[in-house]
């Protein structure tokens, strides 16, 4: 089996290095960072932290070098999905492409370029320490399922899930993967921008009763949009929010969006709160708080370039 990781940042690297442990899987990685790609080709892809892994794989910055693949796993930031998949689509003419990205709208963007698409949500996280070296912060589950408008055959979804699981990334194939996806999106949309706008860590957001109410207001809108689409959440995002606030879990964690804002990087707000607003509009569900938060974070981004 040949798998190409599209976007080999922290999450992409976790999939790439783990899948490369398998004798029957040939792993390729496509990434725009020349230094990261060169380091991977020279010394392998190193993971440390939650697991110590060295993956031997082929990395490239040139999409034309990718051979035909049975599977693609897209792990770019959401705003780069379309460009990355457009550049690499030729490799998946007979293959299936899965997303393990944050937010809403990635499957739709992938489906503009490839025939067979797999919806996905992943919880493991990490960060790039140096070219070719990724810190594996937390292990976690991944869920994959056919993307309904342009579905990959379920047997193929199962084959990819089975390979990921054997490689050390526990993955479940389900017929409807929207539940975990919306749980994660609602969690992220209700907490990440609040951290980004206030500068507070996850735990400090949650322990302020008035702010916790605002978080719940955002969660409620997200749940209503999910319900209007007939999506059953696999767990309550509220529980995830309170669990993550525990000192031993992620009390001191700065949301990735807060890290983005501090480094003046474009955030994923369009795909989180923006996604909830768009799906809400399509299904006639008002989402005024998500709309307000979306506008405020876009304003933050605008303040860097005015």
């Amino acid at each position, binding site marked *: 089996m040949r798998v190409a990781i599209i976007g080999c940042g922290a999450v992409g690297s976790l999939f790439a290095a783990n899948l490369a442990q398998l004798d029957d899987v040939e792993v390729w990685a496509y990434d725009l960072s020349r230094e990261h790609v060169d380091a991977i080709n020279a010394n392998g892809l190193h993971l440390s932290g939650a697991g110590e892994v060295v993956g031997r794989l082929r990395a490239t910055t040139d999409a034309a070098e990718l051979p035909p693949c049975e599977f693609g796993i897209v792990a770019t930031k959401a705003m780069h999905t379309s460009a990355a998949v457009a550049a690499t689509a030729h490799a998946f003419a007979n293959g299936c492409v899965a997303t393990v990205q944050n937010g809403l709208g990635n499957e739709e963007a992938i489906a503009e370029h490839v025939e067979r698409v797999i919806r996905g949500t992943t919880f493991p996280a990490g960060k790039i320490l140096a070219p070719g070296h990724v810190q594996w912060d937390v292990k976690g589950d991944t869920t994959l399922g056919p993307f309904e408008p342009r579905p990959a055959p379920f047997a193929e979804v199962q084959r990819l899930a089975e390979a990921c699981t054997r490689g050390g990334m526990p993955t479940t194939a389900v017929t409807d993967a929207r539940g975990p996806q919306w749980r994660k999106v609602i969690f992220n949309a209700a907490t990440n921008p609040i951290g980004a706008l206030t500068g*507070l860590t996850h735990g400090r957001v949650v322990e302020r009763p008035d*702010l916790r109410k605002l978080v719940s207001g955002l969660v409620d809108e997200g749940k209503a949009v999910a319900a209007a689409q007939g999506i059953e959440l696999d767990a309550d995002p509220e529980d995830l929010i309170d669990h993550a606030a525990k000192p031993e879990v992620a009390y001191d964690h700065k949301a990735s969006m807060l890290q983005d804002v501090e480094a003046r990087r474009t955030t994923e707000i369009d795909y989180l709160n923006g996604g909830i607003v768009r799906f809400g509009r399509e299904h006639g569900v008002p989402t005024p708080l998500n709309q307000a938060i979306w506008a405020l974070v876009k304003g933050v981004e605008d303040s860097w370039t005015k």
Partner: protein
Amino acid sequence: MRVVVAGAGTIGSLFAAHLARVADVAVLTRREDHARTLNEHGLCVSGRSGFTARVAASTDPAELGDAALVVLACKGGDLEPLAASIAGHFPNATVMTVQNGLGAEDVVAAHGVWPLLSAVTFMSGTRHDDSHVEYVLDTATWIGPYRDTTQADAEAVAELIRAAGLKAEAFDDLRPAQWSKLIFNATVNTVAALTGLPHDFHFAAGMLGGLVHDLVDEGKAVAAAAGVELREDPWEMNVHATQHGHAHYPSMLEDVKAHRPTEIELITGSLVRAAEQHCVPVPLHTAVYRLVKAKEASYS
């Protein structure tokens, strides 16, 4: 005529320096070194005016003698201790508040029986140091009667301020103007503080303009429920201000950048409390109120 200006931030400094051209002005400061600097160097105004005024300054109200007019020009959060510190002083003065938000008059009323005028000011400036303030926006100060005063008293003070070279207007009831400004500030200042944007074109168009419009609408609903007919449409004030060309940095944005406490309680806090009192839902103002409060908490 003797005028005491209590509080020498940007607005207090602009009032004190200009009024010193037509009246005998004394400034009540919080810091000793600030008073000393003013006594030694006077107060220099640049920008739209250019002059240096002689003023007497002290941290002790007893040293300033009596006055016909006391202008309380501190920030809202400092008003309670300031009002307490002048209790028992200035027996013949009319006291005028110029704080943002609602409720400043009642804070002062609790500390003395002075006749009270209430005012809001739209002028703005930048305070460069203790003895130098830049006059930036020459918009007016609006004055109205509050307790034991009439429109004629308000007009007399407006006339004095105009003679000093600033803009001022008197009204028989300040609430329509005060609420227009409250809604404007509750919207623009918080959005600026949360986004880091100065008050520029982003506030009048696109997605952020949409949020500003929705915040203004919530504020209008509260005013209507409180029986206040607005003097100006805060949305139009917003659009007009963003067309000035010069992008203004609202004080709340300056405050969060400097990690100082903001006027959120006095501005959005009073709007949210008024909404509660009149049973008007204000989910968006409640959200930005909570966000700014949390941003203040992030300093520590």
